[in-house]
């Protein structure tokens, strides 16, 4: 390839990158726009809800849209809950599957791989009645458990991969020293796979933070809403009037994802491969 065409290709790549950035750049511009329906003028008033917690000055809307501080806490609880439980359970199961020859290990691993692809739609109706009977419907805890379990097969695979990459000698030395299996796992292995734990924790935080479908089906009262439900509600009700407000809320919702994404991009470009639905 000649020098000229090489430069040309780099320019094409930069253009492609800019096109990919455009939707997010446009969102940012709209969020700071004074005009409610187009990018025009500059204001930060659209973000007033961050301090006041209220999306609208009109008190009638408070009935429909809960306090944004509460909604943010709900979203955070879901994200941290999913991330914490997935990391804990995956680093337990992943360890056993990587190190111990349990009966039917191959079948188990195959099953986990198959479960990873199980579509949400197949679970939703059963989940709705199951959580109802357990008293976990309309409860964020129910959503955390449902979401956790959907993501668990991937988590176990990822953690198993990280354990597989650690040599055995350190661990054997520790067990021979009489440290006990639980202690060896907690004090020797977990510190060694810290990059894996961090990567999975971030991936699952993003996954829980952005969840929509499970909240939409399993939560009824707006006091348990997350940001996705508020934005969905706003799009439905005033998707053509208050675009700049929706954009501001969307940007507020998106920024934590972006920060985590930038911090963990190196891992995410590898790990997120498996975590895909469509």
């Amino acid at each position, binding site marked *: 390839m000649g020098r000229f065409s090489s430069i040309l290709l780099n320019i094409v790549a930069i253009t492609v990158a800019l096109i990919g950035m455009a939707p997010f750049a446009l969102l940012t511009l709209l969020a700071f726009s004074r005009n409610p329906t187009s990018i025009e003028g500059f204001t930060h008033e659209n973000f007033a809800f961050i301090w006041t917690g209220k999306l609208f000055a009109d008190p009638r809307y408070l009935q429909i849209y809960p306090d944004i501080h509460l909604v943010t806490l709900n979203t955070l609880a879901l994200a941290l809950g999913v991330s914490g439980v997935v990391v804990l*359970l995956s680093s337990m199961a992943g360890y056993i599957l990587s190190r*111990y020859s349990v009966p039917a290990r191959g079948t188990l691993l195959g099953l986990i791989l198959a479960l990873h692809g199980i579509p949400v739609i197949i679970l939703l109706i059963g989940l*709705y009645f199951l959580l109802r009977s357990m008293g976990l419907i309309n409860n964020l805890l129910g959503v955390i458990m449902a979401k956790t*379990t959907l993501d668990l097969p991937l988590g176990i695979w990822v953690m198993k991969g990280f354990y597989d990459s650690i040599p055995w000698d350190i661990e054997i030395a520790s067990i021979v020293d009489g440290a006990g299996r639980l202690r060896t796992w907690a004090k020797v292995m977990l510190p060694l796979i810290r990059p894996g734990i961090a990567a999975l924790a971030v991936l699952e935080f993003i996954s829980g933070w952005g969840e929509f479908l499970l909240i939409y089906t399993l939560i009824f009262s707006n006091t348990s809403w997350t940001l996705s439900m508020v934005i969905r509600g706003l799009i439905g009700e005033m998707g053509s009037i208050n675009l700049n407000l929706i954009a501001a809320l969307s940007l507020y919702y998106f920024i934590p994802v972006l920060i985590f994404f930038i911090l963990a991009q190196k891992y995410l470009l590898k790990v997120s491969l498996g975590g895909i639905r469509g």
Partner: protein
Amino acid sequence: MKNDKVFFIAGFLGLPIAVVILFLLAPAMLTIIISFTGLDHRLRWEYVGLENYRRILTDPNMLLFIANTAMFVAGTLAFNVGMGLLLALISTHVIEPIGYLVRAIYLLPRVTPSVVFAFIMLWIFSPLDSGVINSTLIRIGFNPIPWTTSFPWLFLFIVNGLVGCSLGMLIFTSAIKSIPSDYIIAAKVDGAPYITIIFKIIIPMIKGHIAFVTAYQTLSLITSFEYILLTLDGGPGYYTTEVWALAAFHKAFAQYSLSSQYGYAAAMTSFLMVAAAILTILYWRAFRLREMISQPKIEV
């Protein structure tokens, strides 16, 4: 000592397995059981045998849902895989910082909360004058075009394709990077133009990866409906973009709970379950996924 090991394994493996059984396998089984009942908003569990299945097979709308699903899967897949391949080819043939930037940016739609990405795309392609494209058209003196109502499928291909293309992009990138450089250098020495190198060397060598991504995406797209729900919601008009999975979802979780037909919807998802199971078994054979069991999946 032996006991200690058994307890350790049972605890560490048992807890995650119990969670999976309770929140994954049990709901799936429950859905199948519900498909044999007439469960609706009155919440009465009465056994109706295969009645729901009979009604589905005789409902004239089902052909429409199947056709819509085929359309959705085929179109999104073409966009997905094509875009993924294009991004992988571009990002591996430029200087690495730029290539990395391209890949990172096209991974963003996947990690963006679905409602946010749906909102942005709805606004860009809005049929109203306030949409990004339409307001630009008006400014430069053209007439606005009702994008999402005139081209609903194309819109859905773009939205779902942008979310999905990063899978192909990342897999193809690592495949292209692992092609021995001698092949390409030899072709260059022979004076082959780059387009020939792409079609005669690169694509044939990553054929397997293309097949894998296509297969994997087909499986997940058949049951995918979240972004349709969030954007066109089966419209515009009468079931224009209502795919099978979305129709099942609407039947169960309708806007007004009085019209919820859980039994019927559960039977609809059973068909999806069967389709997904058949495809999984086929792929299991075709791609020898069993080999993946012995290898860690992370280092793709």
